[in-house]
């Protein structure tokens, strides 16, 4: 497959922190509409990979192309977000002093320049969209609550709702079910599968049960590069993967 047909194209991406190679010539292709699970032991470079895609960290070498043409390595966080790449953090990061509604309103796709936001008023379409997301994330009864007062699981859902409001082409989701109950995990898997229909999604996760539930192609990272790729069953049977997970 050539770079032009991909949504996200990483080739030979390396990042070092004080001599530690967090990413080591990482290459990865994501197709439009694809959902991909990324697994790997601690320190495999999963979060660093998210950081270089979203512009938080600049790679030392390598190419990152979005939609086959836009070079992400030269852009800053806000510019990349506006291209259509949304990110959910490992620890839920919502605006604690704002209401649930305001959190979604801030995330909602709309002009991002200061003078546009100064005169912004919630129109009918925007209101309906926020209502819809409140329903999807089951936060409708809590719309006027301060986000800081939500439970851990609710914050995770609000953050997923904020991603939906942003309406990105590619969603990067870092450990969405960490600290969730089994029931919440199941709901989250269903929610992500719904989203995957209209967007491309990269999910980083430790929880194998959750990854199995997603039932998508899996990439195993190890020491900053791809160790194996394929269905969960295939990679679980891979001897190298077993060695890495058993810590050999």
């Amino acid at each position: 497959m050539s770079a032009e047909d991909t949504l996200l194209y990483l080739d030979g991406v390396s990042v070092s922190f004080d001599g530690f190679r967090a990413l080591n010539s990482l290459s990865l292709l994501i197709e439009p509409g694809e959902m991909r699970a990324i697994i790997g032991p601690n320190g495999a470079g999963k979060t660093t990979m998210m950081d270089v895609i979203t512009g938080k960290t600049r790679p030392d070498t390598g190419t990152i192309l979005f939609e086959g043409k836009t070079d992400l390595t030269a852009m800053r966080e806000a510019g990349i977000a506006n291209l259509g790449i949304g990110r959910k953090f490992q620890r839920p990061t919502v605006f604690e002093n704002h209401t649930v509604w305001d959190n979604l309103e801030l995330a909602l796709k709309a002009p991002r320049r200061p003078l546009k936001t100064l005169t912004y008023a919630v129109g009918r379409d925007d209101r309906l969209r926020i209502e819809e997301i409140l329903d999807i994330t089951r936060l409708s009864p809590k719309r006027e609550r301060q986000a800081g007062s939500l439970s851990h699981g609710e914050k995770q859902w609000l953050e997923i709702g904020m991603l939906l409001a942003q309406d990105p082409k590619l969603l990067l989701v870092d450990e969405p079910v960490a600290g969730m109950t089994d029931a919440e995990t199941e709901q989250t898997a269903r929610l992500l599968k719904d989203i995957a229909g209209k967007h491309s999604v990269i999910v980083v996760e430790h929880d194998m049960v959750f990854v199995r539930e997603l039932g998508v192609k899996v990439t195993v990272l190890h020491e900053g590069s791809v160790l194996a790729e394929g269905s969960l069953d295939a990679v679980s049977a891979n001897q190298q993967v077993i060695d890495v997970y058993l810590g050999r």
Partner: protein
Amino acid sequence: MLTRFLLLGLDKKAGVLLAVLALLAVAVPVMALGTAPDSPWHLSTHSVALMGKYLCFALLALALDLVWGYVGILSLGHAAFFTLGGYAMGMYLMRQIGPRGVYGNPILPDFMVFLNWKELPWYWHGFDQFWFAAVMVMLVPGALAFAFGWFAFRSRVTGVYLSIITQALTFALMLAFFRNDMGFGGNNGLTDFKEILGFDIQAPATRVGLFVATVVALAIGYILASSIVASKLGKVLVAVRDAESRVRFLGYETERYKLFAWTLSACMAGVAGALYVPQVGIINPSEFSPASSIEAVIWVAVGGRGTLAGAIIGAVLVNFGKSYFTAALPELWLFALGGLFVLVTLFLPKGILGLAAQLRQRLPSRGAVAAKPAGQKGV
């Protein structure tokens, strides 16, 4: 669109505050000019100037609260913008003196004649026009803040480091303005003003006019600030304060937002300084001193950070206390100020307005508890 935007900020709190300001704008002129000097209702020119001074400080505090309370930028150099605005107004007032100075030079202010200067420096040109000075009052602090913020925010300097360089900024300006060859009167500053817009600056009616102008400026500043805070832009600002990198990943260029609030705040501080100078009759480099900026932070903390109205209340109360203490117990004032800051930080983290909100929350619940036993008695 503009009216809709301005209506955003008009909640109940704003209504009360604007009503108080309107009352001041009517009562003070009546009491100062419409009553006999021996009447108990009479306000002396001195009192009017003092109140005007408090309200100038209130506008400075409001400007500081906009960036500290809502964007989390703790400026320890806001007096720099205030003083620059003051100097711009001072330059206009100096040019108005004309040939009435001690040396009688129609163009050069006295201190330039004294320094044996032959002609007006280029940056003094235009200040004989009020409109020009009025533009400079906002443009100079605004441009400095814009340039400073551009570099500081782009390089992602935040928190304590940013506070320290704002402090360094005002300190550097103080040292620069102390030099005679800067052309701003050195350590004596600018003073001995005669008239403003053709009115005698000492006359009671002029003083009242300046007071009313200050009230109007404060009201406009308040409406503007509270409308901004209530708009979506204000929500972005608060989000930047609480989780800046998250806001970036939503696609907002946080630097632009910080720069907007920061520059606007500097312009407001400049206007406050410009209104301050004709009412106190002097501007000199000591206004740039780091202590002035830190005092402004204390006003905001005392009144309640992030409340706008609290900044105004804090500035007026602390300065009233300062006037009282420095007259009654001059050696104790700095201890009182320091103690106040410690007490507020420890016991009133949300300031006076925060305390008021707490009390209001507690009262109805106590009422509900009290109602229960009463109900049982009835049964």
